[in-house]
């Protein structure tokens, strides 16, 4: 069966190569049948790679340890769910997953555009097929997961215990889908450049793909953060690990794109920015793949060193050089229409947001790449650690919050300073009050945190008032009418109100991180069963120590009751220490009790079964629940923004003439119905 897997990968590679040739010739000759044939080839590659993936899953489920990849990443004791998830646990399988998802995405794009954007399609198909050739080629040659061993081992080596977590089931596929989705905006941007159709056509075609990929990558990053928090046992969710960083880079450039694309849709400006951002986002996904798979970066996420990295590096160079040449060639066509070079107020703030996001992206990129360059050029090991990235993050966060507080209140064309002052009054007042309260509670020891909390309150108030104004603009003044009206607003204007929800999520997330980073604490305690200790505002009582021996693992579990000093129950924490059948070192399952104020995070360090005592490391993480709630809100807002709705306006340059809006004609500052930044 493994040979059938290899055969189907080779067939997919052949179909992809045909797609490249047919799309190219079809475009040059204007031959529609050839272009359709190229589209058929992409669909055929998707079918073939689906067969390959099904074969690999079948090999895992039938425990065929004669296949090297199956023997390396599973064993006969592994549960069915993790056996399936072992598919993407190693380099070869994860590349096959990438190729399969890319082929599926390409087939979906082709189906979606059977009767639309036909002028762009030949180049779109050509670019998608070229990327598919790269990944399918890697699977067929350097990273074939179907290679057989010269002997058949009795059992496999098993899955790394760190990967035996729910995160392995969802985090890599979400991350991959996000990365792969960015290929579609890149393909359309290349098609726009080659064909010279540089208006909003390509932007409208990729909108759902860009937002969808941004959402999935964001989901992948959040799932990874949660996985690290609960599995690794150091109490963190983000370590500025090189592989974590490279997942953040395309997410940041995609965020920048989602902001400036609104300016192009409304004003026809910032065309070069948007094209560059679409290309940069894709190039950064390739860079991330290169860093994970070349072995150049030292990371818990990285795969072993492989020559696949050199091919990926070549692809990055090809993408950057080709797109730079194409953009330079098309510069005369990319000038804004009607000589619109002046940037009115709202547009200036969008550009500022963009500059901030890009500066942050470049700084993280440099911090991630520098150790690799130092090691390659000078042969010395250099580590760029958390202090460097934390130093970058503070000014970025402050700037971002300030922009989120002001930007939604500024009108598109001309802003009146007096109107802006009036609108800013409430957010500034709330920000100052929150800042003062935070300063009193903190004793002025952490001024940066106080500034962040104050700006967060300001931004949150601005966003809440925007929602309130939207309801009032529809004449709903009674409280009981607010919720249904708000619901209708989300249905009628999902893009605008979804965006507001995303921003609220970001504010909540920043507040959670600021509180945790500033006020987290940890202490070590040894307790006998029945003994209790006070940690912060909680009393922890060791209720039981249980041991369990099964054919696959030996484990010790400690259960702690959590109560308030008043005696009110606040739940339980269960933490475990275990040794699996294929493990050398015992591992720990962290116990977490999440409360709105803080997380009680307990790591079982050692157990003496004879004396029924156990040693614990107890962390208090304030605001961590807010990080996950903020992340959830961010994803919900993104989902609302792309949810199909009645009267979906795909947004050409200016959807409504200003004569439709008396406020704009009169040069007034604020229109609650205009989409915000």
């Amino acid at each position, binding site marked *: *069966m493994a040979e*059938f897997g290899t055969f189907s990968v080779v067939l997919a590679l052949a*179909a992809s190569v045909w797609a490249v040739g047919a799309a190219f010739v079809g475009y040059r000759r204007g031959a529609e049948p050839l272009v*359709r044939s190229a589209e058929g080839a992409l669909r055929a590659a998707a079918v073939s790679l689906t067969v390959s993936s099904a074969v690999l899953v079948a090999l895992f489920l039938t425990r065929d340890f004669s296949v090297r990849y199956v023997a390396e990443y599973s064993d006969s004791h592994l549960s069915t769910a993790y056996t399936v998830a072992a598919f993407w646990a190693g380099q070869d399988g994860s590349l096959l997953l990438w190729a399969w998802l890319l082929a599926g995405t390409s087939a979906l794009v082709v189906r979606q555009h059977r009767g639309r954007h036909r002028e762009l399609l030949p180049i779109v198909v050509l670019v998608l097929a070229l990327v598919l050739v790269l990944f399918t080629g890697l699977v067929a040659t350097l990273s074939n997961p179907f290679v057989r061993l010269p002997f058949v081992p009795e059992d496999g080596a098993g899955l790394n215990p760190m990967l035996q977590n729910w995160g392995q089931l969802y985090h890599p596929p979400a991350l991959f889908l996000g990365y792969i989705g960015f290929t579609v905006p890149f393909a359309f941007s290349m098609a726009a450049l080659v064909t010279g159709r540089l208006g909003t056509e390509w932007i409208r075609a990729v909108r759902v793909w860009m937002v969808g990929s941004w959402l999935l990558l964001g989901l992948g990053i959040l799932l990874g953060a949660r996985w690290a928090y609960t599995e690794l046992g150091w109490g963190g969710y983000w370590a500025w690990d090189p592989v974590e960083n490279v997942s953040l880079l395309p997410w940041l450039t995609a965020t920048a794109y989602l902001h400036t694309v609104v300016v192009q849709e409304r004003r026809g400006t910032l065309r070069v920015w948007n094209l560059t951002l679409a290309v940069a986002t894709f190039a950064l996904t390739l860079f991330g793949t290169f860093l994970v798979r070349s072995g150049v970066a030292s990371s818990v996420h990285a795969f072993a060193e492989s020559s696949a990295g050199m091919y990926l590096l070549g692809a990055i160079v090809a993408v950057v050089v080709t797109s730079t040449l194409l953009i330079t060639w098309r510069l005369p066509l990319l000038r804004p229409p009607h000589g619109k070079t002046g940037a009115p107020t709202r547009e200036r703030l969008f550009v500022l947001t963009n500059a901030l996001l890009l500066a942050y992206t470049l700084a993280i990129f440099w911090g991630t790449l520098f150790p690799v360059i130092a090691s390659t050029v000078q042969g010395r090991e250099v580590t760029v650690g958390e202090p460097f990235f934390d130093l970058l993050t503070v000014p970025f966060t402050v700037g971002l919050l300030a922009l989120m507080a002001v930007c939604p209140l500024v009108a598109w064309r001309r802003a009146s300073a007096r109107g802006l002052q009036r609108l800013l009054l409430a957010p500034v007042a709330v920000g100052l009050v929150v800042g003062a309260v935070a300063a009193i509670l903190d004793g002025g020891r952490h001024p940066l945190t106080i500034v962040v909390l104050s700006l967060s309150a300001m931004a949150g108030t601005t966003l809440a008032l925007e929602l309130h104004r939207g309801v009032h603009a529809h004449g709903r003044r009674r409280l009981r009418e607010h919720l249904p009206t708000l619901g209708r607003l989300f249905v009628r204007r999902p893009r605008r109100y979804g965006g507001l929800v995303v921003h609220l999520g970001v504010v909540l997330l920043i507040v959670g991180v600021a509180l945790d980073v500033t006020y987290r604490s940890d202490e070590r305690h040894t307790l006998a069963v029945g003994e209790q200790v006070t940690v912060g505002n909680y009393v922890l009582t060791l209720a039981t120590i249980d041991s369990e021996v099964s054919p696959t693992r030996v484990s010790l579990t400690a259960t702690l009751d959590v109560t308030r000093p008043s005696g009110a129950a606040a739940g339980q924490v269960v933490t475990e220490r275990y040794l699996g059948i294929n493990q050398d070192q015992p591992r720990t399952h962290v116990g977490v009790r999440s409360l709105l104020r803080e997380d009680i995070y307990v790591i079982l360090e050692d157990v003496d079964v004879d004396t029924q005592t156990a040693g614990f490391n107890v962390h208090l993480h304030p605001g961590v629940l807010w990080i996950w709630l903020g992340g959830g809100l961010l994803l919900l807002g993104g989902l609302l923004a792309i949810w199909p709705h009645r009267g979906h306006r795909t947004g050409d340059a200016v959807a*409504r*003439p200003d*004569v439709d809006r008396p406020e704009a*004609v009169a040069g007034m500052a604020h229109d609650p119905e205009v989409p915000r930044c």
Partner: protein
Amino acid sequence: MLILAAFALILVVVGMIVRPLLHPTPPPSTPPPDPGAPASSDEVEVPGEPPATTSDDLEARIAARRAQMASREETER
């Protein structure tokens, strides 16, 4: 069995590639333009006002609306 499956897969792949060459689909038909529809989004009608056809008309309408706003403010004062 596997040889049969491989053969079937080849047939499917080749079929998907060759079919558009043997049976070319006509280019997608575009719906005939609606004679009453505006030519672009910039020419969307404002309810209660005649449709704008040139930039001069648009300027005139903006001026008229400004005057209307000024008159309304005057009345309110």
